[in-house]
């Protein structure tokens, strides 16, 4: 993350989020350490299946259009952009750096911290993968978690990160795509992390919560635990799978299935729906009849399975970190589950998630000053913008940095 020396005001920042369903670009202006939304571009994504680029040419064209739309609506031309990454090519793992605390008094110095961090960062990512970012995890001094160990005494200092890596080839593809539009890529940001920061309140993050970003092609999750990112993951199953299942079960075209999903489907199967008939006027004249019970049965079994997959993934990664099974109880995650992303709008999804996880669950909207962006499908791009702001406007004084960042986040 290169930090530029301060540029002449006003500064503009832009955020790009490429989803399986749609691509969004936001353009903002930094005014008084906050972002004012200038422009907005959005289109249906082409060439992406389940979060994986299948047709780079079509995707490039699509992103080009969206950037153009955003530039036109903002009335400015962009030169730099922050891009979110998401999807099954993103993976993560924990890296750990350990140093013995030297000196007679065994007091931890800032240099020890730097050394421990450096040793964690020296661990090479798996072949064919590039490190995207490091997210700090609790620092341990002789095995005990401490917020700031500098000045404390101990023997063994342990610093760990949740390291996010991305498949190298596809990441280079994306860099090439953005550079090809004469845009400078400022940085890659993890979409699910940004989305979680946009929807989760500080209190949720401090106490612990699981944010699930339900996209069209992928479902990403990120686990906040005691003010740190504990781990993250992604299941390449999303809202489109519900649509596909409905296509198959009802024998209808994709657009009809999509419409039925948005209007009638529920993540819960209720016996009383079985007798409800939905009439739909077809374009060819005769109306189609659908049984609401069928729609909900198909949607609910799919969503329950998806949530089960997320739960298994979370449990497996948490097990990796703690070295033992950790039950996902309300004691572990008091703030429960926050559901966001376009596919989180499926009716009764929080209830279904609550049932699968045994945790409180609720739908969460991104916090932003722009009312038109307060929709779950914009959580990632709003979060990217907020993270970009933090990056562009570094905190002036270190101790106040956290609150400054928090304010910036909340006031985008």
């Amino acid at each position, binding site marked *: 993350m290169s930090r530029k020396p301060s540029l002449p005001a006003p500064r503009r920042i832009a955020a790009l989020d490429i989803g399986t369903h749609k691509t969004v670009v936001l353009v903002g202006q930094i005014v008084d350490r906050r972002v004012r939304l200038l422009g907005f571009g959005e289109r249906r994504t082409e060439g992406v299946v389940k979060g994986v680029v*299948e047709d780079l040419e079509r995707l490039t064209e699509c992103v080009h259009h969206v950037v153009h739309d955003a530039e036109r609506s903002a009335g400015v031309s962009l030169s730099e952009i922050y891009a979110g990454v998401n999807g099954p090519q993103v993976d993560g793992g924990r890296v750990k750096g350990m140093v013995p605390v030297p000196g007679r008094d065994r007091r931890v110095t800032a240099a020890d911290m730097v050394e421990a961090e450096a040793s964690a960062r020296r661990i090479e990512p798996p072949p064919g993968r590039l490190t995207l970012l490091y997210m700090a995890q609790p620092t341990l001094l002789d095995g005990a978690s401490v917020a700031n160990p500098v000045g404390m005494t101990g023997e063994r200092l342990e610093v760990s990160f949740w390291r996010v890596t991305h498949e190298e080839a596809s990441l280079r593809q994306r860099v090439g795509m953005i550079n090809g539009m004469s845009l400078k890529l400022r940085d890659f940001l993890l979409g699910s992390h940004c989305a979680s920061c946009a929807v989760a309140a500080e209190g949720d993050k401090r106490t612990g919560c699981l944010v699930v970003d339900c996209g069209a092609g992928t479902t990403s999750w990120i686990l906040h635990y005691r003010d740190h990112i504990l781990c993250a993951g992604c299941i390449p199953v999303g809202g489109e799978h519900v649509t596909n299942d409905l*296509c*198959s079960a009802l024998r209808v075209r*994709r657009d009809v299935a999509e419409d039925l999903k948005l209007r009638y489907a529920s993540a819960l199967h209720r016996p009383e729906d079985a007798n409800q*008939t939905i009439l739909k006027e077809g374009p060819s004249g005769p109306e189609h*009849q659908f049984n609401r019970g069928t729609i909900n049965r*198909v949607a609910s*079994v799919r969503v329950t399975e998806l949530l089960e997959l997320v739960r298994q993934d979370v449990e497996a990664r948490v097990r990796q970190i703690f070295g033992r099974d950790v039950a996902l109880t309300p004691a572990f995650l008091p703030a429960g589950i926050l559901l966001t992303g376009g596919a989180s709008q499926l009716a009764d999804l929080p209830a279904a998630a609550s049932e699968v996880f045994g945790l409180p669950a609720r739908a969460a909207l991104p916090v932003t000053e722009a009312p038109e962006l307060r929709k779950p499908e914009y959580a990632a791009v709003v979060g990217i913008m907020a993270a970009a702001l933090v990056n562009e406007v570094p905190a002036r004084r270190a101790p106040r940095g956290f609150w400054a960042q928090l304010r910036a986040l909340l006031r985008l």
Partner: protein
Amino acid sequence: MPEAVPILLVGVGGAGVSLVGRLAPGLPANARALVVDADLSALEASGLPDPVQLGRGSLRGLGAGGEPALGADAAEAEEAELRRRLSGASLVMVVCGLGGGVGGGAAPVVARLAAEGGATVLALATLPFSHEGERRLSAARDAAVALHRRAHGTVILRNDALLQVAAADAPVAELFAETGRWVGAALDALSGCFRPGALLPLDPGALRSFLPAPGCRATFATAAARGEGAVLAATRAALASPLLPHGPEAERHDHLLVEVVGGPDLSTGDCQAAVAALRGDLGGDRITLLGARTDSPEPGLVRVSFLAASPPAAPGAEPRRPAKGRRAKGKPADAADQALFSFAEEANLRRGLFGTSAPNLFNGEDVDIPTYLRKGIRLPSAD
């Protein structure tokens, strides 16, 4: 007046023999039945006269033990006998269960010999249940490709789909009976629409142009309805048949044959409306055939059946649906192979919109396949 098309219904292998044996007592006048298997007891149980026993020497009256190679060899050994017995029919319908030794191995041979004898060959084949194991499924997919190459038209019925039709706790016999009804309906539709005396009879020669060359992918569905607007209701029910391999968006066909059977009050207008609805969902841009009869077995009952087929793409031809989506990406020269390949990959058909994208494996299951199908969850019926 066109003449009735002589039809030969051939059951190959255990499942095929049993299905044909079940249908044999009620065959239409222009149809004959033949059973071909290695298992002598199965042939006897079918009760049909003059069965063709394969592998008299090599298999000694037992089945091929799930080895398609054995089944194919046994059929090749009986080539002369099979040729003789398969001759004389204009339409040969080969009924078999893929995945077994004789059904998977001998059926392609039977289809080839029948086609070489000058008949149009339509294969109706079932694929094993997913729970029968990966080995049997992959053998069945290979057999489907072999059959697809030899037969003019191949209709695949997924046994998994039967779980949607029959009750969850239905005995296997009930599922089998459902397959029997489906094959019977196909036989009835194809024998009936060329029968003289129909309201709208079809020219028997039309079948040749309908399935012009080996390698057509085909689907068949049927449904019945009664009362006001029965024709359209039956049409919609046929389109919604859970036995169809996948949603209509996933596949459109160039050729469409519709048969409507109703009472004396059946109007051509109703039939045209049914055709219009089917064309909207299925295609039939190159050939659409409509046959109609007024000899419904029950008064007031209307049955609508359709057979849709796509001839193999000619080499170098434009892919059929290049408009949108990732299918257009492949080299055009591969189009025919591609069609064959995706046909073989039965799973791809079930993955619908995700078509040929990489499988999404979790705990050994491809989660792109609809959950309700994988878990065998029966859905409430459409009405």
